[in-house]
């Protein structure tokens, strides 16, 4: 029954593209006890792509990944790998490999045994396995003498590398990552992000990565999908997601932003306080309610010499140093808090009341 559906799927010209996607999801749903953890996702992942799915916890991203890896099967919809339906193909028969959040290293084995595990499954000869394991260890920058080290005695970063080498030993077509870097400290995380990106480029394999961290997604991905409540709200390049978020959720998810609710009036837009708002001419919103999203770095102090399209007055009540930049929290007269970030050279000298503003071209208008 399902194979009929699969052939119907691959015959349909509506979904076929060139190059043909490695992984294709069509209306995939996963329901647990009446709750749809994944609620109708359609997605094409191209050969050699680095796709990151971001979303807050509980958005269904891990469930999605588990379905792709074969650890869960979808309640509805189709998942195809190179055109073949894999909905019910168990994880050990899929040419895919998942790097778990906990890494799931085998605690009773050495580093070498861990890496060789998939090779042992394939009955590769011991000397050959060892050779391959050492190659992979070099690739992920693990010292050779770690081969016979107890894996539980490795540090967090080293364990990460062992998990990566083990996944590569399986030689999968697609690698999945379930927030493997989330437990590491900032510096190590940054380093491993870059190394992962390098590995992706060198190996030419398709990577699907899951995280709740915007930064991680931005650094590594070719494309980012944003998930919310079981759905993909937006998918695009990091640049697209950053500069043209589909809605307020995406905009807010991608870091600290200022949100000004606006409503339509007489062909223009008004703020809550009744003042008109200048928006970019290419803005097209369907409803009557919308939000202006302004990133803190696009807000600035307004003076007589340097005006702005939109302004508001308030008082500074907090100042943070971000190193080369300064961030201020300004409370407006209506009680809203705005964030404004300026280079250290442009630090605010005065006291008390300030006027801040933004230009229409630097703001994003999203529906709702």
């Amino acid at each position, binding site marked *: 029954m399902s194979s009929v559906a699969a052939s119907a799927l691959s015959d349909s010209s509506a979904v076929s593209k060139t190059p043909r996607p490695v992984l294709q999801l069509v209306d995939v749903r996963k329901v647990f006890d009446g709750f749809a953890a994944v609620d109708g996702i359609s997605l094409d992942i191209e050969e050699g792509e680095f796709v990151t799915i971001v979303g807050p916890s509980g958005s269904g991203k891990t469930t999605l990944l588990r379905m792709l890896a074969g650890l869960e099967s979808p309640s509805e919809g189709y998942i195809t790998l190179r055109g073949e339906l894999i909905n019910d193909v168990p994880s050990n028969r899929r040419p895919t490999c998942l790097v778990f959040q906990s890494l*799931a290293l085998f*605690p009773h084995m050495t580093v070498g045994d861990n890496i060789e595990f998939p090779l042992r499954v394939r009955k590769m000869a011991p000397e050959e396995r060892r050779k391959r394991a050492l190659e992979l260890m070099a690739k992920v920058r693990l010292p050779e003498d770690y081969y016979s080290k107890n894996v539980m005695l490795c540090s967090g970063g080293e364990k990460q590398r062992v998990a990566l080498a083990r996944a590569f030993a399986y030689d999968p077509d697609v690698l999945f990552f379930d927030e493997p870097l989330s437990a590491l400290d900032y510096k190590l995380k940054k380093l491993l992000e870059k190394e992962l990106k390098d590995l992706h480029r060198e190996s030419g394999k398709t990577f699907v990565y899951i995280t709740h961290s915007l930064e991680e997604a931005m650094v590594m991905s070719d494309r980012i999908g944003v998930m919310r409540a079981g759905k993909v709200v937006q998918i695009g390049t990091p640049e697209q997601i950053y500069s043209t978020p589909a809605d307020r959720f995406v905009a807010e998810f991608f870091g600290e932003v200022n949100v000004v609710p606006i409503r339509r009036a007489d062909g223009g837009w008004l703020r809550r306080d009744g003042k008109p708002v200048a928006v970019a001419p290419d803005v097209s919103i369907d409803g009557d309610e919308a939000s202006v999203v302004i990133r803190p770095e696009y807000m600035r102090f307004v003076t007589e010499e340097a005006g702005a399209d939109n302004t508001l007055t308030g008082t500074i009540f907090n100042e943070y140093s971000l190193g080369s930049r300064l961030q201020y929290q300004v409370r407006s007269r209506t009680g809203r808090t705005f964030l404004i970030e300026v280079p250290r050279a442009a630090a605010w000298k005065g006291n008390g009341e300030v006027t801040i503003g933004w230009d229409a071209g630097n703001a994003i208008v999203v529906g709702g």
Partner: protein
Amino acid sequence: MQTVGRTRTHFLIRAWTAFVVLAIYLPIACGALAGLSKGRYFAFPIRIFSTEWWGKTWDSFEIHVLVQNSVLIALIVTVLSVLFAFFGALAFARYPWKGRRAFQRLLLLPIFFPQPVLGLALLLWFNALGISPTWKTAVVAHLVWIVPVVTLVIAIQVFSFDPVLEEAASDLGASRLFTLRTVTLPILWPGIWSGALFAFLLSWGNFPLSLYTAGADSTIPKWLYSKMVAGYTPMVPALGTMSTLTAAALLLGGGLVRFLLRRRAELRAREG
């Protein structure tokens, strides 16, 4: 001041340790000595020492049969109970299912049931089913009581086992059987070993269940008891001492084997 305190603490620790060792080993030593007495009756001080009773015990055909029975029962009980308990422990510690908690409680109940009553009840059952009690029925009786204990022991290990490891193994291409052999079992081995040890010792030393359900077949505890009640001979303490020494030898041997295995593994790792 402080050194005085520390010295006193050290003294107390040593005194306590000595007391515990004495409390445990004095009775055993007394038993051992009683077996070495030439006299027919259990009495201290011992007038004349002799290995006569040891020799008699060692040569006795009756004792041979007893030891055989006890070892056979304990071995069969160990194998079967570990098998049942392993899967039982996996079932309630590893997989969520309806009635899992009830199963856990029901499983615990026989442990708290007084053994003589359990033995009697089982004997009545065997009679009702027309099975005449032998050492085989004793195996069944032992299992009823020992499987729950071993299940608990193994479950402790299973609870700390991360099921993600099995998923990871499968994701790396391993079949269920391969995963069981290379991941699940090796990680659960310590629990299985302690379960097996418990099973053997509980069966080996069990008296009330054997009394009721072994029928005409005797086991070491059964024989010891009957001789204590009527017809004491110094073979009783001699046999008791022998089994203690055997257990000690087994433990030492097991420790030695483990030590050697570990050293071999370390050497191999260093060479590799």
